[in-house]
């Protein structure tokens, strides 16, 4: 078939699809009142998982509503168990959509999975106190074996190497695998247990074999890339090194890896994975995605401003308070913009007085393909521009909360009141009243498909905030409660 004919056929075919789509559903949905509860159940299911329920699942939800077990059933929906089959959609879809806007300045959803969103998903999956995600040493990634680490080898099954026979044949698992492929055409992977951190290549009790569907060329490419092999899934995940680029997480998403599986996707330390020093580690604030979004260029004020937006639900304009002393406003802020000092006093200082006093927490961070952290070395961009020589010069990563008094005291700031570095700043955010309120508001927006505008909405948000504080910041429970409260079911 020549190309023209192919193209013509393709165009006609797609045109036909449009027509078919149009014609198929002018008669859809002739609902009556009896359908309302089914519709509400469907909306609740979609709110939690992004997927439509089957009729049997709807029946179970309605039945649970009538017996007062809706909360329990909603948990089953989230965890895809007890008759609900949603795979990992709560994690791979709902939570991914929830956290993704935090990892870019424009808040776009069209952003691949990254270390920041993956860590949010992992924290919620494992029911960890979510306020600690802002400072604790944690990052979630896939678990597997790298091709060049000496803990993985691959062979064509029929080409069993005599030199390794003693080691490999000592594992009965390997013998079983060899016999599973009598033709010998498949490739076999010998590996050290990735879930046992103390296992070594010499420990036959922790070495295994499995057949793989990957071809020789694919395995060679993976070796060249030093990719990560996940034996449980027989999947190759690109680029284990998460410090330099985001390919690892993009690969997780492209391969549609089930993020509910804690044998595949689990927590690890940021030390060595992202940073060389524990001083640099500050939960989400020291992830690569956060750095790419907020430590890149600029003056590191974005890290503070977007922390307010993402974790306090406050834009800087809302935080403007001109009564706060301006002694921490940096030198790059003109005290008389346009020749008028009142502009500074009446507008600029309202944000900068508080922001500059706290953004010192990020003084040692920079982004250059990965997050860099040089203890004791204030990044030059913070003191580079001088419009007002008597302004504050950043000499270390100390910060102080000047908004603890004045209009912004209503945010219910936590502790400490002053400190050093991003980790302590993260602690401040995590112990503030504004954090659970903001999380509750964002969960509301996610599962209720609107912003809270009415008194009813505000009550739901308030109840969610209260729940979060009382149940150890369990976000999963917050999602479930909020979705039920606004579902109307």
């Amino acid at each position: 078939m020549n190309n023209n004919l192919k193209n013509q056929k393709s165009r006609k075919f797609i045109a036909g699809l449009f027509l078919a789509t149009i014609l198929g559903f002018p008669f859809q949905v002739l609902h009556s009142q009896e359908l309302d509860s089914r519709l509400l159940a469907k909306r609740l299911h979609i709110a939690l998982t992004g997927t439509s329920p089957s009729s049997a699942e709807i029946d179970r939800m309605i039945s649970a509503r009538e017996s007062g077990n809706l909360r329990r059933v909603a948990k089953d929906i989230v965890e895809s168990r007890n008759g609900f089959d949603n795979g990992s959609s709560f994690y791979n879809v709902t939570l991914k959509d929830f956290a993704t806007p935090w990892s870019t300045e424009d808040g776009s959803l069209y952003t691949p999975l990254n270390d920041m969103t993956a860590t949010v998903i992992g924290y919620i999956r494992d029911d960890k106190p979510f306020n600690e995600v802002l400072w604790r040493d944690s990052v979630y990634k896939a678990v597997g074996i790298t091709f060049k680490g000496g803990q993985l080898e691959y062979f064509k099954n029929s080409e069993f190497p005599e030199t390794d026979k003693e080691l490999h044949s000592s594992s009965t698992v390997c013998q079983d695998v060899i016999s599973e492929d009598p033709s010998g055409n498949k490739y076999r992977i010998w590996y050290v247990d990735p879930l046992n951190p103390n296992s070594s290549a010499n420990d036959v009790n922790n070495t295994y074999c499995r057949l793989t569907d990957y071809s020789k060329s694919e395995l060679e490419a993976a070796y060249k890339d030093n990719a990560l092999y996940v034996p449980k899934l027989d999947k190759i995940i690109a680029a284990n090194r998460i410090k330099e680029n985001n390919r690892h997480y993009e690969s997780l998403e492209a391969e549609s890896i089930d993020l509910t599986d804690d044998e595949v996707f689990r927590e690890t330390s940021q030390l060595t994975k992202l940073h060389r020093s524990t001083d640099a580690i500050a939960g989400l604030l020291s992830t690569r995605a956060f750095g790419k979004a907020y430590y890149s260029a600029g003056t590191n004020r974005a890290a503070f401003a977007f922390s307010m937006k993402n974790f306090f639900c406050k834009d800087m304009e809302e935080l403007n308070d001109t009564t706060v002393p301006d002694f921490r406003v940096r030198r790059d802020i003109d005290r008389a913009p346009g020749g008028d000092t009142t502009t500074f006093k009446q507008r600029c200082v309202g944000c900068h007085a508080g922001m500059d006093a706290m953004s010192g927490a990020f003084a040692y961070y920079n982004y250059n393909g990965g997050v860099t952290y040089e203890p004791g070395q204030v990044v030059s961009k913070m003191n580079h521009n001088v419009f007002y020589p008597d302004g504050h010069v950043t000499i270390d990563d100390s910060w102080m909360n000047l908004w603890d008094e004045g209009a912004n005291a209503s945010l219910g700031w936590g502790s400490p009141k002053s400190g050093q570095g991003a980790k302590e700043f993260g602690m401040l955010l995590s112990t503030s009243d504004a954090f659970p309120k903001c999380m509750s508001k964002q969960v509301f927006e996610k599962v209720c498909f609107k912003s809270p505008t009415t008194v009813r909405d505000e009550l739901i948000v308030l109840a969610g905030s209260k729940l979060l504080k009382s149940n150890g910041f369990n976000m999963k429970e917050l999602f479930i409660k909020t979705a039920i409260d606004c579902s109307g079911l």
Partner: protein
Amino acid sequence: MKNFTRTNKLLKKPTSILLLLTVFCLTSCLPKGVEKADESDLDFSTNNNSGPETSSPSPRTGSDLPDDGPIVSGASELSTKTEILNFNQMSMNFSKITGVDRGHPMIKDVMSEVLSQLPSSNNVNSFTAFTQVSITRLSFSYCDVFVDEDSDFSSINYSASNNEEIINLLLTKTLDTADSSNPSVLYEDLASELNDVLNNNTNDPEVTTYIDSSIDSIGDRKKRLTKMACTLTLSSSYVTMF
């Protein structure tokens, strides 16, 4: 740019009119009985579940009721708007319905091409003609793999099978025909339309599928039409909106 050029080529065809009709159809087919409630309809009492347009479910008084149970109940205006699935939800939904892995190479390729044209929010106001084009392309990619790889479809002899068998299988797998609350007219009308599609009925002014009957064998043609019929159901507002 590549996608845009390809789309422009499509729009040179009569499909531009069809797209407008699509928008009209999808906005006029929104669920009835889900109109926005008035503020006066809201009920803050804990034990009164009656909403503006619902029957009155039993109060939540079971022993399983959590201590900090819902502060509000009853159908609210929150649950009475029509929304559209965003791109992530849509792909997961298609995957759940068809059983096709989102990581399938063909799905990944098409998804990367149409991603930016799929809805990024659940607000139905974001729906445009380009959105429907993209939804159709994505749903076709799922249906292409689905009809090829699903064991039930694989066992069909497309040269010999009658349309009813295919339509029943399609409706059972892609729409929830077990849901008795859906009006039977939905399935009857849809089955009729699918039948026209499967017949490649070029005489029907409403159905012109453009499958060139001189190229493929009868079996191949019927299989392609089955994929098309599957696309019809998958990309419909029944699946993509709620």
